[in-house]
């Protein structure tokens, strides 16, 4: 226990302030709907990998590390779409995941934002539409926020998620 406490104290705080110098536009983040103070400081996200290579998932994991600490903004990942304000979708939508994605979306309380993260989810990326894939998320669900990148680095994901929450002004 002492070793753990020692380590915690010597590590200190690694969490970095959010860089707000660049506009969302310049980062390539596209926000469709007018999003406002609708979520009262608490924003729950259900992530769905609809057919990703797992690169985006690694970067979403990184949002939780001490450097980014997503939860400090009141944003957290939840296990059920019924608890979620937003669906964060990564990957192309594989045809084998089409039904599961639609059901997850239907299970969300309205308005139920859809955030497409990563090149595949935004425009089909390297895979596009084919016998196995429907390509971009927008081919299956209306998309509110698009976060580009292959995969989007955590700092960009963070800005995109905060844009969805209405905290970051475009």
């Amino acid at each position, binding site marked *: 226990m002492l*070793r*753990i406490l020692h*380590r*915690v104290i010597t*590590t200190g705080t*690694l969490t970095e302030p959010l860089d707000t110098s660049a506009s969302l536009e310049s980062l390539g983040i596209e926000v469709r709907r007018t999003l406002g103070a609708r979520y009262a400081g608490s924003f729950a996200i259900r*992530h*769905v*990998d*609809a*057919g*990703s*290579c*797992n*690169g*985006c*998932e*690694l*970067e*979403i*994991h*990184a949002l*939780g*590390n*001490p*450097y*980014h600490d997503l939860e400090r903004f009141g944003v957290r*990942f939840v*296990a059920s779409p019924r608890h979620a304000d937003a669906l964060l979708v990564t*990957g*192309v939508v*594989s*045809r*084998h*995941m*089409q*039904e*599961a994605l*639609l*059901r*997850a979306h239907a299970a969300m309380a309205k308005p139920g934002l859809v955030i497409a993260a990563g090149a595949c989810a935004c425009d089909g*990326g*390297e*895979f596009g*539409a*084919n*016998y*196995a*894939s429907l390509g971009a998320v927008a081919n299956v669900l209306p998309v509110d926020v698009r976060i580009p990148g*292959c*995969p989007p*680095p955590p700092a960009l994901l963070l800005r995109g998620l905060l844009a969805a929450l209405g905290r970051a002004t475009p």
Partner: protein
Amino acid sequence: MMAQAFAERLRAALPGVALSPRTESGLMPAMVLAVSAADWAALGTAAHALGARWAACWVDPEPDHWRAWVLYEQGGAYVLAQTLLDPRAPRLPSLAAVYAAADRPERAIRDLLGVDFEGHPDARRWLRHQAWRAQEHPLRPEQPLAGAPPARAPADTGYPFRRIAGDAVHEVAVGPIHAGTIEPGHFRFAAVGEQALTLETRLGYTHRGVEKLAVGRDAEGLLRLAARVAGDSTVAHAWAACMAMERAAGCAVPARALALRALLAERERVANHLGDVGGIANDVGFSFAQMQFGALRERWQRRSAVLFGHRLLMDALCAGGVRTDLDLAGTQALLQDHARLRAELAPLVDILLDHPSLEDRLVGAGVLGTADARALGCLGYLGRASGLAFDLRRDAPYPPYDRLPVRVPLYDSGDVAARMRVRLDEIDVALELMDTLLAALPPGPVSTHWEAPPAGARGLGLVEGWRGETLAFVRFGADGRVARYAPRDPGVFAWPALERLLPGNIIPDFPVCNKSVNGSYAGGDL
């Protein structure tokens, strides 16, 4: 030559069978053994009797006939068995009864190409769900990439899972969408109370058509795709694809490029192991380690972004070399990083290996015995935690590993604790290797001119990714375009292992068992 001796042993074991071992430059160091389809199973049985490992199977629909390939490995020696199939009625004896590892790969080939694996013990589909019909086989050359899918493919709810009967037995269905940020897949448990009796995994949810998408691409296009077979193994798959193409084309990669590729591969290994060790600890509620290892991994990825242009090292390789050189300042920065990581890890490892509540959850959990690991063809940290020491970098070394001493950690307890321990040891080994590489980076260019080979040229790439032996087969068609790309991720062998090691554990320990095995979804679903 080791492969020749292995081929001779196979020949001696099959006196009545016509086998003519030969070499093909693109497929070196493997020895090629052509057999008739009738002798396919006999060869598999002989290989199994000799203790060889079944490493991979793929079918290549060549213009005139189809060709089936199976790769066997024994003690670092490779033999590639091949036989011809009739495209009008492709059939082949199944090896799944001899080699459990062949079970799902053969079913995947049956789904995608319609090859009838005679005597296969499992008639169920594998990669096919409900997006195309049983009589359609999307990887067949005459099938268009777009296919003819339904507007809305139904959920594959009718898949016939194996049922366990009994008064107190209940089923637990999980997925395809899991509780956390994980790739999709379906797990079906049969349980009594908390205790799992069986687990069956059902995958294929991230099937994106990788092999079909590869057809017609040039080398650069293929590498973009190979880099996205599995994002956590982007260097491993890209290097395997490069190696396959370069061997097919007889392209000599400069020594500096090879050293930098190894550096990238070791960086990928360290990044993933850091993430996994934190993840294993987190799955038993030890979030301290998750945060500490998450921070180490973040710093590691940031350095990758600065020096190689990408946090996960995607698209760092090109046919003929690598895209980015490393200057002296970069080398110094890396050496300092390595020293700092060692210093930061040492006290953390002390805590991980001597923390009673952690030990209580990890030691003895999810035990995979050596015999099971061998039967299922387990590789990488999964095999090395269960007594299987195979490591391509040491046992069939490819440049630059042929000049590097590679230590291979080995444990035989086969539990979650051993799989964590192997990862910690491998971080050490990787740091040593990278220090050695950086101390003597060969001078010269980081890439050479790439020229695609003529139609028909084919190559095999084999590299030790962080999950183990990662394979790529490439055959070129006309105009330098890829006619066939068959990748095989080592993570495919982890799922049957997970099914084997879980029974007897409680379902609440499933996440940590699963994380310790960390099979690849995307790498197997393709």
